[in-house]
């Protein structure tokens, strides 16, 4: 993966740029000491690092607007950053860019239970949105694994999902409005506490645009009343194929669980060694969670049991208590950490039609042997959002490159069977150069035209999403 060379004309004006930012922001909001800017050199895709020219941490929409206007007028690229948890390099800076972090903007602005929304500043973490309303029986549905740390700003930028989106949808389905600051420093309100757009659906366009159209400083989010209860079951199977077939049968039967999670043997083994959740020793397992009152849960789980039994499970374990429910989720929730204990890993995010699960899992197994790298699969099976974790050793020369090549082959396979490169992590830099696998040049051109409208000079997060060769002319290269 390459990033464009820093623009020396911008670098040469570093002190002028920092001074101009200091003129419109409080002293503690502008960071240019190299020892401190290093904190912003990468996000959760840690294989790639580059300290920015400066980092700014505004406290208000007005400060964001003032800072963006300065950068716009001076022609300085800006990389917006929420909490820096992107797995796709969405917040990776270039040396000639200013990181604009919204972490200090984390207030709750308004909560309205009658109209069922919350309005927050975009730096607020995902989990603390639910935290602000759960005492009153409400929750915010999208729940990415990083929800303790990740910011709503990043969730909106990447259109983040989570384990429970089979029932509740992803960020875009739960977003009612945003305050957007354009690169030129203009503050625009899109949407609000009402539903749907009166004109073109700009909100739908902004969500998932990876910080390339504007900086979101506030968001109005739909909140939902908490269900009366929830209960998971764990079902073990003799093969990936059988587990995949069971997923399709559950969905076809008319049950809509809130989550259907899938783990294969390598992942089960790793999490058992790490978390001791007491998982069965089997080829594949599903964790299926349903919601409702006790009797409703019994009814749904009864149906799921019937379906599962047709697939000769090696185990069907229903949580009989809070503690047992916690143990069922424990292994799944520690899966990434467990794999990380074994080695460095790269986490992919391709999504496939559920019907292709067995075929794709088999092919990944074959490719794992071809590339000589182990892979574990743990993912949201209900919606086909795979998360193959490829293990490699960062200290072994050539291993990262081999891992990336393997990852690219898996993603190509996802597209080949009718799926996509990324289901919830975003393109960033990680999948940028694979965009041509999924989209024809005209498809990418149509998307880049949108950026032309919002950010004609291509200063916002410019080296992401689109293959560098495709965006070169627009980036002034």
């Amino acid at each position, binding site marked *: 993966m390459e990033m464009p060379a820093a623009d020396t004309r911008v670098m040469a004006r570093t002190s002028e740029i920092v001074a101009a930012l200091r003129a419109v922001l409080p002293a503690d909001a502008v960071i240019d000491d190299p020892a401190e800017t290093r904190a912003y050199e990468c996000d959760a895709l840690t294989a790639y690092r580059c300290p920015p020219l400066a980092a700014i941490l505004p406290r208000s929409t007005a400060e964001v607007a003032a800072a963006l206007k300065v950068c716009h007028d001076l022609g300085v690229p800006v990389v917006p950053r929420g909490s820096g948890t992107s797995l796709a390099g969405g917040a990776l800076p270039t040396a000639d860019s200013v990181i604009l972090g919204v972490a200090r903007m984390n207030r709750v602005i308004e909560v309205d239970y009658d109209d069922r929304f919350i309005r927050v500043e975009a730096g607020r973490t995902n989990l603390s949105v639910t935290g602000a309303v759960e005492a009153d029986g409400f929750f915010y549905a999208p729940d990415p694994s990083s929800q303790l740390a990740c910011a709503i700003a990043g969730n909106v930028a990447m259109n983040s999902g989570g384990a429970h989106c089979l029932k509740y949808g992803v960020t875009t389905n739960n977003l009612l409005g945003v305050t957007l600051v354009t690169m030129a420093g203009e503050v625009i309100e899109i949407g609000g506490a009402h539903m749907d757009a009166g004109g073109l*659906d700009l909100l739908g366009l902004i*969500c998932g645009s990876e910080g390339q159209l504007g900086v979101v400083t506030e968001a109005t989010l739909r909140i939902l*009343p908490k269900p009366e209860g929830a209960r998971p079951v764990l079902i073990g199977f003799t093969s990936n194929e059988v587990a995949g077939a069971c997923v399709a049968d559950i969905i076809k039967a008319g049950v809509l669980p809130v989550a259907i999670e899938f783990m294969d043997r390598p992942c089960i083994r790793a999490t058992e060694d790490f978390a001791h959740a007491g998982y069965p020793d089997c080829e594949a397992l599903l964790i299926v969670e349903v919601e409702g009152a006790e009797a409703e849960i019994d009814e749904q789980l009864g149906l799921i049991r019937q379906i599962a039994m047709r697939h000769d499970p090696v185990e069907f374990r229903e949580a009989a208590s809070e503690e047992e429910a916690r143990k069922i989720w424990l292994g799944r929730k520690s899966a990434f950490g467990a794999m990380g204990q074994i080695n460095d890993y790269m986490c992919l995010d391709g999504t496939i039609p559920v019907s292709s699960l067995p075929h794709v899992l088999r092919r990944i197994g074959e490719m794992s042997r071809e590339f000589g790298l182990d892979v574990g699969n743990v993912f949201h099976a209900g919606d086909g959002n795979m998360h193959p974790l490829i293990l490699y050793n960062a200290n072994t020369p050539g291993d990262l490159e081999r891992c990336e090549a393997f990852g690219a082959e898996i993603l190509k396979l996802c597209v080949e069977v009718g799926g996509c490169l990324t289901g919830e992590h975003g393109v960033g830099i990680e999948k940028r150069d694979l*965009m041509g696998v999924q989209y024809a040049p005209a498809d990418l051109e149509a998307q880049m035209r949108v950026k032309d409208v919002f950010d004609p000079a291509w200063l916002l997060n410019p080296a992401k999403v689109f293959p560098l060769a495709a965006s070169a002319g627009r980036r002034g290269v």
Partner: protein
Amino acid sequence: MDHNESRVVKVTEERELAEAIREATGPLRIRGGGTRTVGRVVEGVDLDVSGLNGIGLYEPGALTLVAGAGTPLAEVEVALAAEGQRLAFEPADWRGLLGTGGAPTLGGMVAANVSGPRRVQAGACRDALLGVRFVDGSGTVVKNGGRVMKNVTGYDLVKLMAGSWGTLGVLSEVSLKVLPAPEAAAVLVLAGLDPAAAVGAMTAALRSPYDVTGAAHGPWGTLLRIEGFAGSVDYRAGRLAGVLAPFGEVRVERDGAAVAALWRAVRDVAPFHGGDGAVWRVSLRPSDAPGFLAALGRNGIGADAVMDWGGGLVWTRVPDTGDAGEAVIRAETRARGGHATLMRASAGTRARVAPFPPEPAAVAALSAGLRARFDPRGILNPGLMG
């Protein structure tokens, strides 16, 4: 009739659609089933895309369906019903409301982002739209999204196309997420509530954990719908009746056909079928609906109203004279945050009154910029959205 056979271009393949747009020398009026005659009247050659029809892929186990944009909605609904599935967003049929004939198509439904009562719980048409293929104003075929549930690969032009009324591109194919149809449904009915009490009751229901899938108010009374497995519907209907008890006597309707008929009437705004009058569709914060209607009442309009989405959607019928209530309705909507669209009016009124809500300057500039880039010659339903 303002057009004749010689001014109709009919296409049956995406390639022909692209060719027709490339070769167009003037404005095109995009036509699927011709049932959704909303917006400024467009003068131009009819581009009939109803020939782009047929279900290309339907995988019940993956909850996805892909079909040509000209596919009749009825054909899709029959195919889904055979597998016990449905379009969860409950697309409305506006023929009765708008006095149109023809057969609603998938493309028209998407282009107008048509949702029904279940929008409040299951999301809008745009939320169920997984992918699109369309031809832009230059005649270039573009695809975006796909046919999987989760997809954040590049910008979401899928959402942009939903509700763009054919002004950014002409849809050739759409992919939709479908959902299981429930085993049972019940509706709880309260009689005699004024708008404020009705919104109070609907809010209490929607704040409860009983997963209400419809909350409407009109000549039928105040309606709350529960759907799911039979045992679960019985349980939740019982609990919800308790929640609603402070608002009056609750009648529970469990007959499947009667429940379906009631919600079809809500979905299609049956009280305004036939007759005279202009009809507005207003999106608001639900709690603002009673105040909004009261404000209209002070101006002598708004008595004729239906509320859906727990109050978040207000349909109101006003005399089709002068500005058809535009000044009052827009001012009262703007004051609360929301938007109003003139859905039905005579051609004369639609020429005088902008049917779509005016946008603030900064937003209007973005919309205009998008139109200029997707349709540089300004030939796709030009002016329809104002």
